[in-house]
């Protein structure tokens, strides 16, 4: 599931002395994705206590498309964060993707499918721009992505003329579609997550990508050029955000000119909740997707016990805050987890980070 899945198998490690002395449950628990999964399961378990309706079919079907969109944007964000960056331009990219798809698709000038492809590819160029500036000029990603966000917001205004237009019917019907009773958008997001996770963990390029994020110098020593990976992270982030924007245009039918703003902070929160460190390096795409699911369900749940926006925001912020602190504090430290579970001051090992204990393979 996560990085450890591809490292030395956990079970033999318990029996044979040297590499990894941790027990299997502890190892599994130390995967960031596991902790995110526990949070999601716990949230769904307590949901009926507040309102039975929150786990009804209607509720789940209403919530999933928004979780799916957050997940797709957050997968891109994970890739950038793995490279030690932060993409603040996803808001603009989502909106630009949505507005482009709606405006071009409904204009009748091009086929809606062509409009969708153009929307995604043109928007992704801004990601390439961010990546090139970050990689070659070595400027802080925060500043660079704020700038490219501003460029995209400007283009949104120019393309839309200041007002939203209707998404083409094909796109809007597709976004509402169901497959085995669940929204197709959820399956779309699932596909993105699985492909990204597989590429990252099972392919050479994926392993190199993680290596570059974790230790640029080591990557350079073995002849891997970090610039290519940095640029591709920003490109993919913009591409995925634009794809989410296209889906959003279909889901909303009338995408507003600030529609993407609602995805910036959740995309970062989902990454952190999913267990990817903001400092870069290894990440868990599945964890990120679970983080997105957690956020969508949380927002739905909070809405059911209060209509007050102020209280909703405060409660939501507190729970996300606790989740992030828990994830960061426990992040990869089996000793701390064990300590929490067994209350033993077990090891004298100074709670090493998994970075030191795990073996990484770069094929």
């Amino acid at each position: 599931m996560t990085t450890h899945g591809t490292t030395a198998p956990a079970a033999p490690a318990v029996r044979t002395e040297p590499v990894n002395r941790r027990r299997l449950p502890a190892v599994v628990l130390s995967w960031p994705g596991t902790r995110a999964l526990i949070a999601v399961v716990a949230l769904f378990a307590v949901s009926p206590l507040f309102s039975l309706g929150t786990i009804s079919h209607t509720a789940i079907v209403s919530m999933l498309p928004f979780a799916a969109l957050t997940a797709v944007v957050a997968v891109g964000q994970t890739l950038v964060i793995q490279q030690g960056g932060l993409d603040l331009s996803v808001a603009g990219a989502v909106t630009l993707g949505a507005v482009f798809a709606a405006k071009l698709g409904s204009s009748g000038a091009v086929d809606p499918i062509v409009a969708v492809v153009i929307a995604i590819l043109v928007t992704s160029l801004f990601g390439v721009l961010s990546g090139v500036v970050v990689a070659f000029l070595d400027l802080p990603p925060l500043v660079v992505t704020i700038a490219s966000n501003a460029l995209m917001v400007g283009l949104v205004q120019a393309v839309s003329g200041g007002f939203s237009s209707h998404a083409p019917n094909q796109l809007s019907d597709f976004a509402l579609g169901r497959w085995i009773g669940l929204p197709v958008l959820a399956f779309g997001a699932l596909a993105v997550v699985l492909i990204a996770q597989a590429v990252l963990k099972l392919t050479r390029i994926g392993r190199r990508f993680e290596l570059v994020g974790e230790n640029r110098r080591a990557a350079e020593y073995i002849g891997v050029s970090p610039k290519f990976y940095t640029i591709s992270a920003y490109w993919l982030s913009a591409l995925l955000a634009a794809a989410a924007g296209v889906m959003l245009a279909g889901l909303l039918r009338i995408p507003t000119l600030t529609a993407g703003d609602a995805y910036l902070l959740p995309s970062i929160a989902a990454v952190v909740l999913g267990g990817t460190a903001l400092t870069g390096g290894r990440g868990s795409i599945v964890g990120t997707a679970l983080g997105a699911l957690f956020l969508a369900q949380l927002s739905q749940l909070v809405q059911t016990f209060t209509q007050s926006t102020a209280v909703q925001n405060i409660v939501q912020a507190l729970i996300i805050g606790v989740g992030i602190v828990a994830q960061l504090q426990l992040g990869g430290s089996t000793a701390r987890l064990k300590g929490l579970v067994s209350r033993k001051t077990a090891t004298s090992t100074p709670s090493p980070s998994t970075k030191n204990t795990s073996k990484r393979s770069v094929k």
Partner: protein
Amino acid sequence: MKSNATVRVAVTTVMVAAALILAGCSSTNSSTTGSTNNTLHADIAAGKVGTESQFGSIADVCGSKPVTVSVVDGYGTNSWSKTVKAEIDSEAAKCKSITSVAYTAGAGDLAATNAAITGAAAKGSNILLVIPDAGPGQAQLASIRKATKAGTIVVPFASDPTGKAGTDYLDYADQIPSFSGQAWAQWVVDTLGTKGGNVVFLGGPAGAAVSAQEFIGIQKVLAKNPQIKLLTPQPVTTNWDPAQAQQAMAGLLSQYPKIDAVIADYGAVASGVIRAYQAAGVSVPLLTSTDDNSLSCGFDALKKTNPAYELATNSSRTWIGRVALRKALAAFYGKTDTEPSQYNLGLVEDSTGKTAGTKVPDKACLSDAPSDASPSSLLTTAEFKAIFG
């Protein structure tokens, strides 16, 4: 010596202070009265209540002296705002003395909206029409006052600026929101009948004055009809954004298994509500809102698959900017304008056909105009096509 010096310093200080106060006074006076003496009072029937049948004509209030107009919209990013702007442009085109109509959208940003208001006055606009809905009305009142003091004729419209006409600005043109709330709620009561049912109300941004006042009207009617239960203790926040409305409605659908009627105070929000129902695979119930071409023209098709669906709307008052402009022009040229500035908006469209004087959606639909158009707008189909393409 020392005491002399102290006295000298004291006298100088007093003189400087007096000079400053005098300068301040004189500058305040000159700017209050400004080039025109009519920023606060004119023969314009400020605050008069009435209906759309009492509209005035711009020909009666237009003069010969060149006049510049600025429009600031606290939101300005949706179709309603686009129509309002087009209506003001269309009205302004009928008075040749209007040399320019500058438009700024605050996009929901309070600071940007306030900056636009003071900026318009600083630029020397003769007339400033403001929709103070980037936040609570009073958050924009200070800059409205400042603009008035600077000699600009300010007419807030379409959202309550708080403050007082004649003290803080010339006049405030709008619907009476509580009346709209009552009209919607009464239709729900009549249509659901004695069996009653559950109702939800979706408003605009959190704390929006219009939504709050509409909500009071709704509560007033429902208090007399206990068979109808209002599920939402306050307006549900949508920011008048169909996307957010869709998400909010999705939340309501999961929270309440039985919703028999939805009241939304903006037609595009109602579209988002329908979208949420479709996404959840639940049948659309009674829906009442402000008029919107996509609601009217799409009614018959939606009704086929959603048997319980009925629609009633009142005017989305996109023409209110025209009233604001006429009031301001009358003040600028010292003319008389007797039309109302506060409007009671009853239903204009009712799919059940039970409300007298209303059209059924199929008849209200402007088939040649785009889906974003407001059927109650005063724009022509050609004008609609020009703005929505």
